[in-house]
């Protein structure tokens, strides 16, 4: 059974992210950052999950994650990303984007750079300095892209004081999340259910492509790109629906999978095993979707808390005549043939699971019940 360690940290956690391991190294993830929300004083903190070698001693305390350091953060932490090994970018509900620097020798965090009015409202009724929450941030060294409730997209570069490029009024509704497609292209999702692709090489403030569902305009909250196939994108919506899109083909999703009962806050493809997908939701569950096609017929669950549920999906696009090997298993979900194993990873229902991150065999997630869960044996 997968061992999940829970720790109650007295603050509601809005984001958790693993620190990336240096490329080419054999290390596994050992440090993660967490951001809190809804407190009078919010913190961005760094945690360590201890020695990997102590796992099979008595379990319990040695497996627990320990706080390394933290720093005050103004406003709720709306999004968190590691810029590189030492720097963390945090998006705040005050519209401010901050880069924190971690000093490993004395285990402290300090503010390295800050863009205070990255997102703000202008309008006939809003005060002149009305701030807008910054809802999403994504980094690709040396660029940082942020989006916010003001419908604005900012492109920052580390160590530049002003934004390199700003697309004002990119969207008339709130932009919820952003991800890189290819380096000069980003994809945003908004609260009227549209995906928009923006190309920074082009001038002008128009998206290069817009995709959406034809049905109800359900707001989309999270997006993630397939690690190897840059045209496959997964999004999670307000009704808990998981959609897989192929951005080259048409403007409609490839498949819609009914998943959670409430908003899906985050969706992540596993970076090294992209046949596995993880989603977490307001209804307090965290699901692991396993679409690897060579999985034999498994009749039993492999953990007590798990829930192996059938899913409801309908393939929209016509996949006839395409080589199976070239398509990722996500694009060809045919209910008759491929089965997606879905298991619930958290032992019991909690309040909303706000965030999750996966790296290697490790998974971390943070909840509104003030707990952080870590497991180091995802694929046991």
């Amino acid at each position, binding site marked *: 059974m997968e061992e999940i360690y829970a720790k109650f940290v007295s603050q509601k956690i809005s984001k958790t992210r693993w620190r990336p391991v240096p490329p080419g190294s054999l290390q596994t993830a050992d440090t993660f950052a967490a951001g809190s929300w809804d*407190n009078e004083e919010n913190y961005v903190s760094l945690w360590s999950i201890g020695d990997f070698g102590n796992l099979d001693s008595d379990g319990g305390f040695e497996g627990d994650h320990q706080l390394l350091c933290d720093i005050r953060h103004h406003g709720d932490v*709306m999004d968190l990303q590691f810029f590189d090994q030492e720097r963390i970018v945090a998006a705040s509900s005050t519209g401010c984007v901050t880069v924190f620097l971690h000093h490993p020798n004395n285990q402290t965090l300090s503010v390295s750079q800050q863009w205070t009015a990255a997102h703000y409202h202008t309008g006939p*009724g809003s005060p002149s300095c009305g701030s807008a929450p910054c*809802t999403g941030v994504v980094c690709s060294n040396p660029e940082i892209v942020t989006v916010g409730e003001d419908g604005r997209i900012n492109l920052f570069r580390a160590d530049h004081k002003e934004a390199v490029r700003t697309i004002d009024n990119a969207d008339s509704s*709130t932009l919820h999340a952003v991800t890189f497609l290819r380096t000069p292209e980003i994809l945003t999702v908004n609260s009227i259910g549209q995906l928009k692709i923006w190309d920074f090489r082009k001038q002008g403030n128009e998206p290069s492509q817009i995709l959406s569902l034809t049905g*109800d305009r359900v707001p989309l909250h999270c997006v993630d790109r397939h690690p190897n196939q840059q045209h496959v994108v997964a999004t999670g919506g307000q009704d808990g629906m998981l959609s897989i899109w192929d951005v080259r083909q048409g403007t409609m999703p490839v498949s819609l999978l009914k998943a959670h009962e409430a*908003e899906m806050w985050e969706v992540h493809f596993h970076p090294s095993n992209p046949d596995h997908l993880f989603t977490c939701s307001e209804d307090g569950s965290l699901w692991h979707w396993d679409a690897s096609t060579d999985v034999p017929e498994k009749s039993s669950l492999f953990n007590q808390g798990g829930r192996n549920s059938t899913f409801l999906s309908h393939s929209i696009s016509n996949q006839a005549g395409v080589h199976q090997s070239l398509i990722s298993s996500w694009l060809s979900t045919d209910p008759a043939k491929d089965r997606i194993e879905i298991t619930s990873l958290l032992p019991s229902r909690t309040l909303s699971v706000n965030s999750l991150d996966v790296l290697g065999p490790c998974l971390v997630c943070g909840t509104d019940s003030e707990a952080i869960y870590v497991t180091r044996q995802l694929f046991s």
Partner: protein
Amino acid sequence: MELIWNLCEILFIEVAPAGALLLHLLDWVRLHVCEVDSLLADVLGSENPSKHDSFWKLVTILVLQGRLDEARQMLSKEADASPSSAGMCRILGDLMRTMPVLSPGNTQTLTELELKWQHWHEECERHLQDSTFASSPHLESLCKIMLGDEAALLEQKELLNNWYHFLVTRLLYSHPTVKPIDLHLYAQSSLDLFLGGESSPEPLDNILLAAFEFDIHQVIKECSIALSNWWFVAHLTDLLDHCKLLQSHNLYFGSNMREFLLLEYASGLFAHHSLWQLGVDYFDYCPELGRVSLELHIERIPLSTEQKALKVLRICEQRQMTEQVRSICKILAMNAVRNNRLGSALSWSIRAKDAAFATLVSDRFLKDYCERGSFSDLDLIDNLGPAMMLSDRLTFLGKYREFHRFYGEKRLTDAASLLLSLMTSQIAPRSFWVILLIDALPLLEEKEVVFSAEQTYELMRCLEDFASRRPVWREPGVQRIQEDVENTKLEMLRLALARNLGRAIIKEGSLEGS
């Protein structure tokens, strides 16, 4: 607080009978007076335990807490160390060993226990009378304690530290088979003896006394007064209520005490900036007033970000609180409109299924169009989808935009019929009619005939309809100029319509047109 809770558990919930009561009380004291263990470790850890400064203090405490086996072990160490007192230690040890206690297996009856205990008590007395322990004052005082001598116990006030410890020890060594009913008498007298008139009872003492008297309501009342928040009282009352120990006497606004306290606690949670999510669950468990209170509280949570708003809305939707959903969405939508985020405003009104607000947003779009001559936020209007059906005005907006698209793509007949249907179907707002009519002009002026004769008649009818119902401008000045401009437009329109009618009739009348 844990002290009070455990005592309530013992007295109210477990309802221990006479003999077992004392055992439970002993456990309770041992749990909450815990310096003993560290002292024990200290003394045992030292090289020569019996010569340690606190040795006798430790032994006394062990006896006071009824931990006679450990006390005996200590004494044996003393016996090893100083052979002179070995004999006395042995005797005392024997006395400790033979003290009758009620075994958990409960094989003896209470009377048997009483008898045995009486017997043992007398033996201790005899030793004391015989001055067996005369040479060692420590051992003598230990013996007196074991006899339950109040004076000896009071001497150990420091070690006892509080009156309930005194009470339990006293009961242990003088009335081990105490019945629950008599408990409060001993409690009161212990309190008086211990305090000795020096200090007055503190709130904690009052609470404990009330507990010993088995007066649940008094306990709750005292706790409510003494403790700073409602957490303890709410949970204790809830627990007692589930054990059916509280008679529900109805408070004057209709709920019982448990619900009242839970409501107070949950309201307190809502006042906290982040604990409001827990408060929701508490309100769910209050059958009478819970839902109403939740409805009132949930609308007043400050919403600083959309994510928080979404969580609040989800809570409301799960409980079918449609009114609250509407009002929260309306607030958010208003904010969005003020900040010029018309798409957000629309998505909030869709979530609340609020047709009126959707109408407001569409009016805003149309106003923008009138002022600027072009649409803002085309991405939104072009992709409305089924949400268009939410309100008439929204549908009109979508269709009007479609008309523009048709015109742009030169699909003139489609544009023409759409325009006509917009006017005849009555979904166009009155203020927009003139614009629609003016929009018809370029179509009428096209080289080929776009409007059929039927359609032209319709248009003329609409025009006359509009002209007859135009509001009469009362004030002179600017309005006159506007009126003139309008009149000119209408004249042009009439001319164009007439011309088109002519052409259409000719076209339809001729061979190709039929």
